């Protein structure tokens, strides 16, 4: 971004060299720099403790885990920038996993079954948006309710069991373990979704308006931005991306399952977004930071698992990380410690 000075008055100019350094750090983002350093630290520590950590097979394991949660984290970033939250994404992923596997069993048509799962995800997202905007329900409460309801819906559909088997089909196999130009298909899907959302946020008027809504929704409304339309569309997008995650989950395991592999993803997604620099009050954050945070979480979780740290402890660690990330955000925003936080 260029900086045009509008006739800066005398005595108002910062020293040129210091300003350059500041600009550079500003461009990369101090937060992103810290995340990169943290990733390096984690990789070095676990790499030294356990040589298997850096084996290609293990990196693949990390990448798989990061892809599914990463999709949800990226779309959660958009929701949080609006100043909202979607904690139903993990359940929607479960629904899509079940729907895609059941539809494939019934039709043997991979593309159609994936398409159906995406349509179902879209509907789940729209339902969230409509409940929040027209039902006037706080986003946390609304999606807490649909977190339970969508999970129940997936369990009803599947009777709580694994559904179908999809890995007899070329397209499902390609998504599960295929690769393009040496990179696994999974990574391509995450990269495509992340890039599309990044471009949307940074380079289009739609993205600009999303930041405006999160920054000051009154100002956005006075500027003529149709906030309702934006919020519903953002929740719909969250539903669609959750469905993509559900399809990948089905492809990876070979089965559709209502909860296995998908429950708990909402916590990962929100933690990654918060660690990546999204302010939960809205208006701040980006895809890059979120992805870096997701990589950090994935590398950390895998390292802990390899070293036989119980998942109980991992849950404690993940919860603690989310709290720490939000405390840092709030400290930075300079909010006074009086009464309930905003």
């Amino acid at each position, binding site marked *: 971004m260029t900086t045009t000075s*509008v006739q800066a008055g005398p005595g108002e100019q910062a020293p040129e060299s210091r300003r350059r350094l500041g600009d550079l750090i500003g461009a990369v983002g101090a937060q992103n720099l810290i995340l990169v350093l943290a990733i390096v630290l984690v990789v070095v520590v676990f790499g030294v403790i356990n040589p298997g950590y850096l084996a290609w097979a293990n990196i693949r394991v990390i990448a798989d885990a990061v892809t599914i949660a990463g999709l949800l984290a990226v779309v959660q970033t958009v929701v949080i920038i609006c100043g909202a939250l979607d904690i139903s994404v993990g359940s929607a992923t479960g629904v899509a996993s079940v729907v895609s596997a059941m539809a494939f069993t019934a039709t043997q048509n991979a593309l159609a079954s994936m398409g159906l799962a995406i349509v179902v995800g879209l509907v789940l997202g729209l339902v969230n948006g409509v409940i929040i905007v027209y039902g006037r329900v706080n986003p946390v409460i609304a999606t807490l309710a649909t977190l339970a309801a969508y999970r129940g819906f997936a369990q009803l559909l599947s009777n709580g069991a694994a559904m179908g088997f999809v890995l007899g089909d070329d397209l499902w196999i390609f998504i599960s373990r295929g690769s393009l130009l040496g990179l696994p298909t999974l990574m391509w899907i995450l990269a495509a979704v992340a890039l599309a959302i990044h471009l949307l946020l940074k*380079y289009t*008027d739609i993205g*600009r*308006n999303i*930041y405006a809504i999160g*920054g000051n929704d009154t100002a956005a409304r006075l*500027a003529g931005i149709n906030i309702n339309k934006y919020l519903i569309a953002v929740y719909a997008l969250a539903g669609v991306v959750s469905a993509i995650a559900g399809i990948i989950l089905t492809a990876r395991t070979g089965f559709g399952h209502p909860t296995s592999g998908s429950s708990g993803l909402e916590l990962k997604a929100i933690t990654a977004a918060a660690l990546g620099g999204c302010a939960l009050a809205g208006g701040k954050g980006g895809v890059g930071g979120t992805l870096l945070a997701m990589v950090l979480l994935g590398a950390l979780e895998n390292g802990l698992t390899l070293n036989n740290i119980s998942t109980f402890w991992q849950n404690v660690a993940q919860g603690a990380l989310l709290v720490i990330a939000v405390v840092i955000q709030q400290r930075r925003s300079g909010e006074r410690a009086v009464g309930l936080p905003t």
Partner: protein
Amino acid sequence: MSQGPVLELRGIDKSFGPVQVLHDVAFSVYPGEVTALVGDNGAGKSTLVKCIGGIHPIDAGEYFFEGEKVQVNGPRDAAALGVEIVYQDLALCDNLDIVQNMFLGRERTSGLVLDEAMMEEMAAKTLAGLSVRTVKSLRQQVSSLSGGQRQTVAIAKAVLWNSKVVILDEPTAALGVAQTAQVLELVRRLADNGLAVVLISHNMNDVFAVSDRIAALYLGRMAAQVRTSDVTHSQVVELITSGRSGELGLRNGNGAAS
């Protein structure tokens, strides 16, 4: 000044639920002039402005723009006419920079992509045209600006669009002496450039310093709209506090304006 009003309201009623805030309000705004809109707290000044801006739908009354009767159903309609409002709470996004705020909701694109270079150039031109020298960088976040700078950005945002009417709701209420003087100077310059300017203010000194006309609201009724040169401070204060002053103002508290 023989020109007719660029914007004229007649018989405006506005209620919020059971509470009627505006009663049969008439209001005219002239090009090249600053019209001060005065009135006590709660008189309905901000409500009138929001009706003009299309934020609140009016219950009854007529809205004329350049002599034509028009319907204004939202902020975009008002903007399309060339009516821009600087709201009391400024309505800026702290998380966005100056250029982004100036184009909020009306971003320029080339194809699908934001045209940042063009927006920055237009913003720079507008600020330069207003002789604004107090802003260091157009890519500064608005949260880092002082009260006067924020007000300046909000005003520049309003004039960016070749607007014909600019309405400022208490632009100097939160400012110090020096910054108030700067903003008033800017207000006068807008009118001298041919814009019709409406200035809401509580400060009689400010009102008499820059305005050509004064419109006084009293409990949601237009008590009087007069030339500034025809009235004194104390007459205006009387209009604000009791709705009448000698021959001027409302008859028996609820009659028509003189």
